[in-house]
């Protein structure tokens, strides 16, 4: 069986990749995608800890991940609706160009 560290390391790396995406890319949809990657990394952690804990028949990790997936679905729905609304209003999805409040 795989040691728990490997899985946690993978999820840490995935989380970092998602963070890099959020912090360095400027396209709104890519930022949304990066958030998805981070959520996936978190789910992976939940499942890993659930698999390695002494009482997996309580399914707590599965429950957490299920609800996280549901929330991720809701988040993407609203996020894409916002993206489309922003695009219609400003004709761009460049997060740097969306600085109406600043000016």
């Amino acid at each position, binding site marked *: 069986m795989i040691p728990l560290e490997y899985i946690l390391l993978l999820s840490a790396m995935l989380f970092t990749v998602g963070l890099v995406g959020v912090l360095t890319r400027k396209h709104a949809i890519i930022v949304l995608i990066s958030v998805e990657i981070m959520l996936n990394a978190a789910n992976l952690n939940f499942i890993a800890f659930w698999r390695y804990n002494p009482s997996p028949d309580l399914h707590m990790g599965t429950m957490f991940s299920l609800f996280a997936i549901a929330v991720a679905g809701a988040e993407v*729905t609203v996020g894409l609706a916002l993206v489309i609304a922003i695009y219609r209003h400003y004709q761009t999805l460049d997060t740097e160009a969306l600085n109406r409040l600043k000016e």
Partner: protein
Amino acid sequence: MTIIFIILSITALTGAISAIFLKNLIYAVYSLLLLFVAIAGIFLMLMAEFLAVVQILVYLGAIGILVLFGVMMTRNISGASSERILSRGWFFGLVISVLMLFGVLIPGLAFSELSSSPAVETITPSVKEIGIQLMHLNTPALWLTAVLLTAALIGAVVVAVPRNYSSKLFLTYKLENKNKSSK
């Protein structure tokens, strides 16, 4: 076992990294899907069979399609963009993330005591068990999720539908916009 895991994790990391750094948005979305598939595979390895199914059903079947539609609705069809893709402060973002990885996550991993093998050797995957758990202990969360999803649905429709909604939805809106900009 470990070999399969390593292959899957390399796939996942490749998918994630190319999803972030590809210029072509459609390619980015498809490599994101690669990541989702690899994660589903790891779920299967960890005997979370039901969750792997949900991952495929929700992430690939629903979220992937949704993001693709979002890309199609906001960009020109070709999907490629020639301008620079990184934001102005990208260097600081990169530094912060790398610090996060090497300063917080990996030390956290290194200094904690983790079991190297699962406490329970085999789990018989059972959807029934998950259903019972969902209906007994987690019912309030289930209700809240239902409310949340409904709210998200309504909210998405309200946000995405143009303010001056009419039967000719998009065309009239575009025309008005053009008039405004010509003035």
